[in-house]
């Protein structure tokens, strides 16, 4: 905490580049870094995905367990999303209980999945009011070079697309695949020096004062949104970000989720 001199220098460097119409790594303002999605890397999980966006790396694992439904939705399964910013992933992260950044990360990813009704939770009911599947979605950050949200959200939906329900472990019968209906994709943008940049890396995140995550579905509708950072945005900037977000989400869905 507390601005350090090196942060100022990095910030100036990023801002200067951008004023000149450039980004580090020679990327365009609307261009993502290289993305890779490796599915099913973790045997112990019912589903998993390792996502890299540039040097940012996130591992998402899904475990299923049998438990009680919430009392106000007795016929529906439960999703519990958790994010750990383990100190391995960044010199800024510290050990300890979830702080506001990891809580926000988990909640934004969770909101996208709920808002789009991606999982048909009613199909996760085993016995109304008594027994449902609990879907534990755990986001484990391995390397934070910026834009954790998009990597985590992509890892989450990729993990969910290939779940085998462990009916046999609990002596149950029933479908073994998780019923998925939608593929929400998160696209995060920042505003730096009046320009909108897609997929900010770590230095760009620090140079920006406002960030907006736009989560959208296959039909171009929105299923979640979150501004963060201590800056303000104008209506027209937000509208432009929403449109860009929907467009980029389509490209990512096509390229990385369709094959799954």
């Amino acid at each position, binding site marked *: 905490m507390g601005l350090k001199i090196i942060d100022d220098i990095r910030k100036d460097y990023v801002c200067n580049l951008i004023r000149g119409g450039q980004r580090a790594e020679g990327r365009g303002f609307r261009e993502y870094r290289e993305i890779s999605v490796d599915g099913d890397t973790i045997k112990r999980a019912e589903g998993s995905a390792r996502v890299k966006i540039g040097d940012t790396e996130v591992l998402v694992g899904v475990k299923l367990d049998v438990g009680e439904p919430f009392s106000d939705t007795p016929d529906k399964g439960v999703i519990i999303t958790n994010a750990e910013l383990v100190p391995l992933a960044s010199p800024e992260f510290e050990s300890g209980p979830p702080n506001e950044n990891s809580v926000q990360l*988990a909640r934004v990813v969770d909101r996208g999945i709920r808002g*789009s009704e991606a999982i048909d939770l009613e199909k996760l009911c085993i016995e109304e009011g008594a027994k449902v599947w609990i879907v534990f979605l755990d986001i484990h950050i391995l390397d934070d070079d910026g834009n954790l949200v998009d990597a985590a959200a992509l890892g989450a939906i990729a993990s969910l697309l290939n779940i085998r329900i462990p009916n046999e472990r609990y002596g149950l019968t029933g479908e073994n695949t998780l019923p998925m209906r939608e593929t929400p994709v998160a696209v995060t943008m920042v505003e730096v020096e009046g320009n909108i940049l897609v997929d900010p890396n770590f230095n760009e995140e620090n140079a920006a004062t406002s960030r907006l995550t736009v989560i959208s579905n296959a039909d171009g509708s*929105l299923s979640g949104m979150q*501004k963060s950072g201590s800056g303000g945005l104008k209506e027209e900037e937000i509208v432009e970000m929403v449109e860009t977000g929907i467009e980029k989400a389509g490209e990512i869905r096509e390229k990385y989720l369709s094959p799954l």
Partner: protein
Amino acid sequence: MKEGKTERKLIIDGKRMDGRGFEELRPLKIEVGVLKRADGSCYLELGDNKVIAAVYGPREMHPRHAQDAKMVVIKCRYNMAPFSVDDRKRPGPDRRSVEISKVSREALDPVIMKEYYPKMAIEVYVEVLQSDAGTRTAGINAASVALADAGIPMTDLVSSIAVGKIDGEVVLDLTGVEDNHGEADMPMAMIARTNTITALQMDGHLTKEEFKRGLKLAMGACHQIYELQRAALIGRYSKSEEREERKRE
């Protein structure tokens, strides 16, 4: 969490269940300077929401290693009283309140002239006493007024409201029932004078067009709220001055 929704008509004959039109705010009541010990405070009711905000500072920042040599640090804590909701809330922060505390802080941050008080802290506390959807926006409105009441140098006030979608319609300022059975909720905050948006969240399902409409609707409502915030502060200062004058007489 939109999954709870069951089929329930929320709009009948073009009116909402509490009789409001689509673009109508709930009644808004603002009282300034309601607490003795706090440096600034504000009690606010928005429909059935009752919130109270207090501001302390600028004062010494603890722990020291979290001080910022260039500017004041803003701390913000949103908290619900255990009896403010239908099912008793266990005391202490949960994930929801941690997120709302962050969003509220970032909503208010842009108007505070932070370079005036390097190494110090300004603390903003919002307590929800009774809730009926929209507590975070009520809290941001109250906190903004409490900051002004505490004499914190600010470039402007921040105003906040939510829009949402119920029965397929984009409407302003959802009640609890509308939120539970509705299709989307989108709280935002804005510096009204400059139309600068400082908070924005969306939860549920909206088309792009609905989103744009909702954003405009919320922006319009923030202008109304801004006037009510100003009026409450003016009322407060004129009262103080009256008192001052009476003393002098």
